[in-house]
């Protein structure tokens, strides 16, 4: 199955600033997915990123707050903009697995906003 590298693994940021999270996959994939996992909660899909087109955002998430880039078939970034303490979460990228393996996840970015 695909191997996903996600950076940074964690960060502490000041409110009002922005953080860009990178997701690198070791193989070409059509779709990449970005999830948020708030403290003590399960995973919530933020958006689906297709190469060469605008990302598709889920209800409650908007492009101005979570802009996504997808420049090629192995890389994507998620930016958390104008951060507030409520944005403190783990952010995860995911791709569809191969060989009968379900969706594969990166190790996540633990974001704390102070």
């Amino acid at each position, binding site marked *: *199955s695909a191997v*996903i590298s*996600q950076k940074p693994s964690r960060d502490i940021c000041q409110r009002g600033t922005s953080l860009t999270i990178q997701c690198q996959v070791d193989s070409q994939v059509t779709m990449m*997915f970005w999830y948020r996992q708030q403290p003590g*909660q*399960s*995973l*919530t*899909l933020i958006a*689906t990123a297709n190469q060469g087109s605008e990302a598709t955002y889920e209800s409650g998430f908007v492009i101005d707050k979570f802009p996504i880039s997808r420049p090629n078939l192995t890389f994507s970034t998620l930016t958390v903009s104008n951060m507030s303490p409520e944005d403190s979460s783990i952010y*995860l990228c*995911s791709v569809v*697995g191969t060989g*009968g*393996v*379900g*969706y*594969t*996840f*990166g*190790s*996540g970015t*633990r974001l704390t906003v102070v």
Partner: protein
Amino acid sequence: EDQVTQSPEALRLQEGESSSLNCSYTVSGLRGLFWYRQDPGKGPEFLFTLYSAGEEKEKERLKATLTKKESFLHITAPKPEDSATYLCAVQVLISSGSARQLTFGSGTQLTVLP
């Protein structure tokens, strides 16, 4: 609206004490039900995908089963290294024939005591 409910929220077992985790779902058309294991500070690790009622899959001490309303993750003679949060997720078919992305339950935090 698709709903996924996991129970119990937390489970403490003695090493060797077998038990089951439950995942109940209410969806319009199930394409697949996924089980993941998540260790603290890491992304979810794929365990199983089940597609139809009656299907069962096994991996070491874990066995997943599926009915039309719920799935069970049976843990036989657990060891302390099985301690983790176990997440289930459903993927739903939509009218166009494609599938929505995963909807996760809130997870069961399993602790196995030596």
